[in-house]
């Protein structure tokens, strides 16, 4: 893994931010989410040209060879921009393949030409639903809520005992999703698979997925807070800016605490992952629920702070609320992660 200096990291984040400000405006997000596939190849190409899909892929496989810390920072920007692209899916798939013998798929993921995603199948997957059995080199059953499956060139299976690549295209049934900026599908497998990673790879991929999503949630929280504060400073009622009313100001102060805490939790978890630290499990669990809860609270209260204008479809606040509420259910909801957090602390005590 390459270690970036503080300055290089800031430059990376800045270039991603500028690209997204240019190519992933609110109008772009709305256009893409209203499209049939929910995917814009041109935007994905632009991100690939900057090396974003291959950020955490080793240099020998055509990636940038960076780690969880850089990924988390980039995901914050993806959250700010509400990026509708298969970045999370490809990142998890790449993590699953990193140490296996299917490294030949990695260069395609890194250069953006091959979109891969992951069906979490172990113990019913993270949703507790779905039922995929891998036995005797064959996978059968349906995995639920697989991100970006309809546009993916490959859907990997992450089961309790390892990762598998289907040798035949599975059946993909797109789902009508609440957050239209992140498409999902049910994926039915019914044929031969090739083992491409062990249980440790699955574990690592899930950790990375959770931290990446936590970064995205922190970005979402930060963006809606900015939006609300900006609005509260300029919207006048009763002859003064609504931000001068304590009821509004106090809400903003509380949201700042939520948003900053989420950022701290996501970054801390990324650092623990990068360092392979013994406190990794606790840090990842903490980020999972702290960031999910913060994003939901901030996006929810942001609409309240805006008042009627944010109750309209035309205002972007609901898009963020949809993203936050949906993301909070992915990879396990907060109560599960709070429980795991306590289990990790018990083990450390």
């Amino acid at each position: 893994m390459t270690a970036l200096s503080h300055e290089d990291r800031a430059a990376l984040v800045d270039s991603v931010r500028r690209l997204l400000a240019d190519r992933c405006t609110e109008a772009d997000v709305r256009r893409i989410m209203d499209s049939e596939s929910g995917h814009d190849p041109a935007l994905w190409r632009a991100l690939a040209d900057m090396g974003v899909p291959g950020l955490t892929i080793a240099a020998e496989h055509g990636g940038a060879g960076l780690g969880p810390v850089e990924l988390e920072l980039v995901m914050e920007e993806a959250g700010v921009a509400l990026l509708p692209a298969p970045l999370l899916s490809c990142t998890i798939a790449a993590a699953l393949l990193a140490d296996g013998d299917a490294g030949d798929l990695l260069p395609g993921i890194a250069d953006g030409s091959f979109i891969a995603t992951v069906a979490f199948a172990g113990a019913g997957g993270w949703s507790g639903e779905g039922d995929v059995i891998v036995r005797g080199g064959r996978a059968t059953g349906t995995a639920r809520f697989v991100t970006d499956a309809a546009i993916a060139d490959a859907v990997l299976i992450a089961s309790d005992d390892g990762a598998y690549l289907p040798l035949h295209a599975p059946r993909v049934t797109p789902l009508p999703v609440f957050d239209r900026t992140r498409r999902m599908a049910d994926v039915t497998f019914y044929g031969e698979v090739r083992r491409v990673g062990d249980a440790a790879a699955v574990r690592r991929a899930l950790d990375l997925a959770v931290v990446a999503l936590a970064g995205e949630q922190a970005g979402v929280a930060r963006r809606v807070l900015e939006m609300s504060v900006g609005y509260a400073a300029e919207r006048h009622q009763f002859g003064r800016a609504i931000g001068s009313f304590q009821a509004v100001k106090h809400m903003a102060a509380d949201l700042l605490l939520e948003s900053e805490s989420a950022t701290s939790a996501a970054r801390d978890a990324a650092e623990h992952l990068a360092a392979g630290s013994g406190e990794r499990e606790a840090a990842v669990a903490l980020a999972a629920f702290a960031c999910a809860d913060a994003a939901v609270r901030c996006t929810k209260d942001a609409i309240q702070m805006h008042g009627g204008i944010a109750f309209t479809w035309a205002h972007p606040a609901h898009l963020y609320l949809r993203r936050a509420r949906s993301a909070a259910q992915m990879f396990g909801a907060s109560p599960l992660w709070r429980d795991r957090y306590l289990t990790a602390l018990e083990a450390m005590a």
Partner: protein
Amino acid sequence: MTDDEVLREVQDWLAAHWKGLPAHHESFGRDPRSEWLAQVRDAGWAVPRWSRDWYGRELSNDQARIVERAFAAAGAPGAGQDRSNLWANTALAHATDAFKRVIVPQLLAGEVGMCLLYSEPGAGSDLAAIRTRADKVPESEGGGWRITGQKVWTSGAAVADYGMLIARTDWDVPKHRGISFFFLPMKQDGVEVRPLRQITDEAHFNEVFITDAFVPEANLLGPLNGGWGVLQTALAYERSVMGDNARGPRSGAGGPKGDHSLLGLAREAGKLDDPVVRQEVAQVIAWRVLNKLNTRRAKAELAQGNSSSIMSLGKLAMSRILHEEARVRTLLLGAESLLEGPEHPRAEDANFLALNAYFTSIGGGTDQIQRNIIGERVLGLPREPEVDRTVPFREVRAG
């Protein structure tokens, strides 16, 4: 000097001088550690960032942290006061040269006891509404100031040598503009200290009644009628310290480990399998850890030379942590929390913490005032209108 040279020098110095301390010490009054602290001061380790003229070594922030870490590793107190010593920082920034020469070295060595004389019965959150008066003594009678008024919530007043006092020096201008900041000598007739019994049944604070007490001319800090600005510096130090530390249980039975003590209590209570309890315990521990992570991030941002808005969040976060931790402790104890006294230390802790949480959520500015400050100074939201901001104080209606 390179970082390595700093580290070697401080370690060598500690090895040669540090022999440990007497076991017990009080946080107010003359510090029994002062002999040691004076050595630290004279060696330049107390305030390594300050100039050499003022007991410092002109070290960079990073190098000063090396000094602090070396002291912490040795278990030796006294380093890093350029970040933590409210009194010395305020004096250095605002006192007259004559007074600074006397007071700063004493403050760094803990040779003088200090207390804060800000709040009054009629001026809590609205601190600028103070009515304690400072009247100029004519030069013909020797100059200086006569102080009369009443202060409250004063820690350590009984043993203090000086109180940092705000008093009104001009009644004909709006309230923020007529206040001055003084170091009031406490050991004099005219300063009467009475303990104040709190809801925790302790008497940690005092009321201070001041009747014609005298402050010499040199003890005025900052410009005459410019005390509000001096106070802001002093309050900023206080808040950042309060967000970082909070007092633990009274008995110590909950253990000093902070984050994990709730876990221990849950285990003792046999409730670690209760899924509802697990959620509550995990969430409270998480808030405490998140606050630490925020503080660490803020410090890292400051060390990189950026300003950090996160620092101002600590006190508000700590209020929630303390109130919620007390609530969950009570939940874990159940009916045991009806009791108190030395035979029931766990109940005593839970109940004490529930009451004492207000120390943080009201003291040093209520959570509500803190949210105003965050909203206005960090997020840049417009100020809450103040109807008396431009009115001469003489004409302001008082409760």
